[in-house]
């Protein structure tokens, strides 16, 4: 599915955004990561249902890799519930919520939305909370979507 066929605006439930921010703060100075399970992949217009924090096995301040066994179990549970991996989340501790070259090269789920949380003060949302931005990553190209956090 090309980027042109995907939603250009995506809404994230406030409680999921809050949980993502809490996890990012808790893991700092390491990058945090997690999965959002949805009714269908984000690229197909699915609704985000649930946030699942995961372990960054690289335990790094500049890199992340979701624990592969955890990812497999999440994927199996989602299949059994008729759900899908909707979004893939990680944090940047000191840089903007923009995918790095490494982020785009390791992105394995082209139909998921890649969400980044930035803990850099300069990137904070108007309410002072860590900024969150959403991206499609297709063939190593990142394209930003308009991300709305539900009021």
């Amino acid at each position, binding site marked *: 599915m090309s980027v042109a066929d995907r939603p250009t605006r995506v809404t994230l439930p406030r409680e999921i955004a809050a949980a993502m921010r809490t996890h990012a703060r808790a893991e700092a100075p390491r990058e945090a990561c997690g999965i959002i399970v949805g009714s269908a992949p984000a690229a197909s217009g699915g609704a985000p249902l649930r946030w699942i924090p995961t372990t960054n096995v690289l335990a790094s301040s500049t890199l992340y890799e979701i624990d*592969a066994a955890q*990812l*497999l179990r999440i994927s199996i549970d989602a299949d059994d519930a008729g759900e899908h991996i909707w979004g893939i989340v990680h944090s940047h501790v000191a840089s903007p919520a923009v995918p790095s070259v490494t982020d785009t090269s390791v992105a*394995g789920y082209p139909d998921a939305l890649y969400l980044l949380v930035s803990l850099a003060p300069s990137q904070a949302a108007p309410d002072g909370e860590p900024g969150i931005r959403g991206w499609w990553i297709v*063939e190593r190209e990142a394209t930003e979507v308009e991300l709305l956090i539900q009021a």
Partner: protein
Amino acid sequence: MRYESIGDAIGGTPLVRVDALLPEAARAKGIHLYAKVELLGPTGSIKDRTAKALIDDLLFKGLLAPGKELIEPTSGNTGAALAVHAAARGIPLTLVMPANVTEERRAFVRALGATIVDSPADQGSNGAVVLARAMAAADSKYVSPDQYSNQANPKVHEITTAPEILADLPEVDVVVAGLGTGGTATGLARYFAREKPSVKIWAAEPMPGEKVTGLRSLEDGFTPEVMETELLAGRVLVNSRDSIVGARALARATGILAGPSTGATLAVALRVARDAAANSNIVFIACDAGWKYFSAGLTEGNLDEMEDALEGDVFWW
């Protein structure tokens, strides 16, 4: 260890505990997960056992007299294993495979002396089966091992793979195998039904319409003659994405680099583990090696591209 032939150096594969793949809740219940690492054979797959057994069977029955040649339609693990065991015994081997099979697979069997006959690329593996059967019908020198109907296939797992598991893990409760020809699952089920009937045999099977190399979905309408599904505790459908993620998880969490069919058996084993009683011991068959799938993108990058590669109708069975 010293052997008279490479064919004697198969079997006796390790059973490796891989509890790191289990969720914390399962580990807390004393559940253990083990991989039967079949990918350590001479050609990196469980088909080493099958190929040797098929050739032994034909020799025992006197069907491979001098002047006879083996012919088999396969672009995958069985072809590679037949090439090794035919070379070790000096038996000519012809492999019929679709013309679009990758050069690395062709080079592997050619290096072992096999002759390759191309079948039309657009007819996939079914075209290879049709051509091999036509060649065998037209020339009496050809003998086909036919892993789908030859009882030597399940038998070798009944007399080697299954007893090895029970000897290494007498407290085994569940064994998960992939459904390809049905040989592994049927052989395991026959043995355990006799020796330890409480052991449940589960089979991993691709979702209808999806492809996991080496595995077949019975719901697509093909049931190999060697398969006895009534002996199984059940069959679980696995999608190709979980098979790939499973293979990646096994590699990263345990250091065992296996192919997507192993990822499928792992995905079923984890489902069994989720619902298992305390202190259950679950074994899954790690049936072939992951290095064969590097060019298809098994180990890194985009899941869609790997799924597309699996859809390419070129199989390692």
